[in-house]
């Protein structure tokens, strides 16, 4: 069987109709991972025995007549989610030996739904990066061009889905870490509304911005996954109490009359023309389906990157203090006293980008600077939210490019952190405002590299975003394109 064209819906049908067993299907994916992962390095941990034993249990459930939502559907989890008994590294040497003693909320939910864990995917260290180059476990290659980055921080999940090593993958997004790699790898990726997906068991980077989400070839696949992933969890104080929603129910609604806001700031300088062109074509395609273009302005867009690089490092500097070599994780070999234990453990355990952000965060919170940096950034954060709230008085969704360029080369931006930071210019403001954002593939730019369109909606408008994207994907096939050389078996 060619698994490279399988959707979640198709897998459910195959399993339901007993055309394939969970063990067989998981085996096919494990084979493909074994074959392709060595060049891509999308997975940090694969454990065949664990996967197959979980699949066996699910087959027993099926035999007993159970019919959970994702019974038998294979899934890859970003290595930021604690999964009991699985190595959970967060892409860091600090946690290179950390076997999680508990399950994240979303891991519990996917396990309960009957999904099968294929493995843990590579990522930028502690989710800090936009190219997956900061991972302690090595570079991830973009399946479309092995000399290009897959984006980050969820680069492993993106590459795994792009190469069809998994039909569905979890990921997280603090400033664009789902949407940017999804765009660069030619797949769909959703960052839900802040608070919609529990952060319990998701290793924290910037708590007020972090949000778990999903990657898959299509919006429809994501809708199936989101049904499991979204929902209230009392262990996360920022988790929102809402009725359970069926995100697949609205996919088929027509989008006639959908008002699509086009912010001028998303199409200004810094945007490559190949990306602009593909995005413009996608907008026209949506217009053909009945959507109505509404030009608008998000005047504070350019401030989102500096705001983010105050707030996220500040929160990170505190969140990462627990990695001190005392209770788990890396501990330095030689130390004379407690201070040296701390300082050497953290110097060895953290990579350069993580250290830079910790130092930046330490600075902006320190005495005498807090008001000027941290509070000022929080004020501008409110301005950015207000921009969006005003915009949504005029439109239903906002559209623009997910990234200013297509995938870039390795080491192209590593020497200048700010140039790397700017690759998230279109995604960061969405996190600051806590909005849902979806990136879908809409064609190719230079060197036949994928281009992503970003759809942004008001809080809790995931169903609307997925609906618009699905309608687009019913009429286009960009999400079905496969990178050359890895199509089929």
């Amino acid at each position, binding site marked *: 069987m060619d698994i490279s064209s399988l959707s979640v819906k198709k897998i459910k049908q195959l399993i339901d109709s007993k055309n394939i067993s969970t063990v067989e299907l998981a085996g096919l994916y494990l084979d493909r991972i074994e074959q392709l992962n060595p060049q891509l390095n999308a997975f940090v941990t694969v454990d065949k025995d664990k996967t197959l034993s979980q699949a066996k249990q699910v087959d027993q459930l099926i035999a007993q007549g159970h019919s959970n939502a994702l019974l038998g559907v294979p899934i890859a989890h970003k290595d930021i989610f604690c999964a009991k008994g699985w190595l959970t590294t967060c892409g860091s040497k600090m946690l290179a030996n*950390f076997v999680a003693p508990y399950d994240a909320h979303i891991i519990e939910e996917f396990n309960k739904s009957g999904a099968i864990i294929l493995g843990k995917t590579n990522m930028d260290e502690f989710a800090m990066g936009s190219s997956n180059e900061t991972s302690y476990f090595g570079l991830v290659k973009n399946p479309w061009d092995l000399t290009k980055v897959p984006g980050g921080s969820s680069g492993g999940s993106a590459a795994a889905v792009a190469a069809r090593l998994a039909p569905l993958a979890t990921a997280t997004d603090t400033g664009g870490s789902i949407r940017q790699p999804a765009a660069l790898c030619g797949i769909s990726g959703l960052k839900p509304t802040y608070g919609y997906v529990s952060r319990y068991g998701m290793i924290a980077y910037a708590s007020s911005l972090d949000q778990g989400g999903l990657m898959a070839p299509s919006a429809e696949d994501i809708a199936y996954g989101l049904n499991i992933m979204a929902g209230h969890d009392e262990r996360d104080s920022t988790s929102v109490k809402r009725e359970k929603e069926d995100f697949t129910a609205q996919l088929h609604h027509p989008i006639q009359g959908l008002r699509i806001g086009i912010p001028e700031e998303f199409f200004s300088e810094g945007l490559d023309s190949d990306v602009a062109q593909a995005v413009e074509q996608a907008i026209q395609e949506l217009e053909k389906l009945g959507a109505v273009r509404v030009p608008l302005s998000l005047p504070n867009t350019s401030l989102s990157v*500096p705001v983010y690089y*105050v707030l996220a490092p500040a929160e990170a500097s505190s969140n990462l203090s627990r990695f001190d070599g005392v209770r788990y994780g890396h501990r330095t070999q030689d130390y004379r006293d407690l201070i040296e234990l701390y300082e050497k453990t*953290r110097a060895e355990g953290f990579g350069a980008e993580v250290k830079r952000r910790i*130092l930046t965060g330490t*600075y902006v919170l320190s005495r005498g600077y807090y008001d000027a940096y941290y509070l000022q950034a*929080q004020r501008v954060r*409110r301005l950015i939210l207000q921009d969006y709230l005003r915009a949504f008085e005029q439109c239903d969704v906002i559209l623009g490019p997910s990234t200013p360029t297509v995938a870039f080369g390795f080491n192209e931006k590593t020497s200048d952190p700010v140039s790397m930071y700017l690759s998230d210019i279109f995604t960061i403001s969405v996190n600051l405002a806590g909005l849902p954002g979806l990136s879908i593939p809409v064609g190719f730019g230079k060197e036949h590299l994928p281009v992503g369109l970003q759809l942004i909606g008001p809080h809790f408008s995931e169903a609307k975003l997925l609906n618009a994207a699905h309608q687009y994907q019913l009429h286009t096939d960009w999400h079905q394109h496969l990178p050359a050389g890895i199509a089929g078996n």
Partner: protein
Amino acid sequence: MSLTDQEIKHLAKLARIHIEDTELSLLRDQLGKVFQLIDTLQAVDTTGIEPLSHSLALNQPLREDRVTEPNLRDVYQAVAPEVEKGLYIVPKVIE
């Protein structure tokens, strides 16, 4: 703005990260660029704007006062670098 080596060392000490002197020049250069970026916020007029901590204006949920956690010491200490008699071990701390 840019940081002096002294300031970088002070930050590293606060953050408990050992920095070699040889790392300082690159760090100074890179942090300098980051601070140049975030300093652009200083020019924004935010008079009368309340700081925003979370995008949704929600209140803290409260938990009932019940003991729900079992003793999982052995499970948690299985991943610890050094334990003895149920205690996490660190070098002698002198007060």
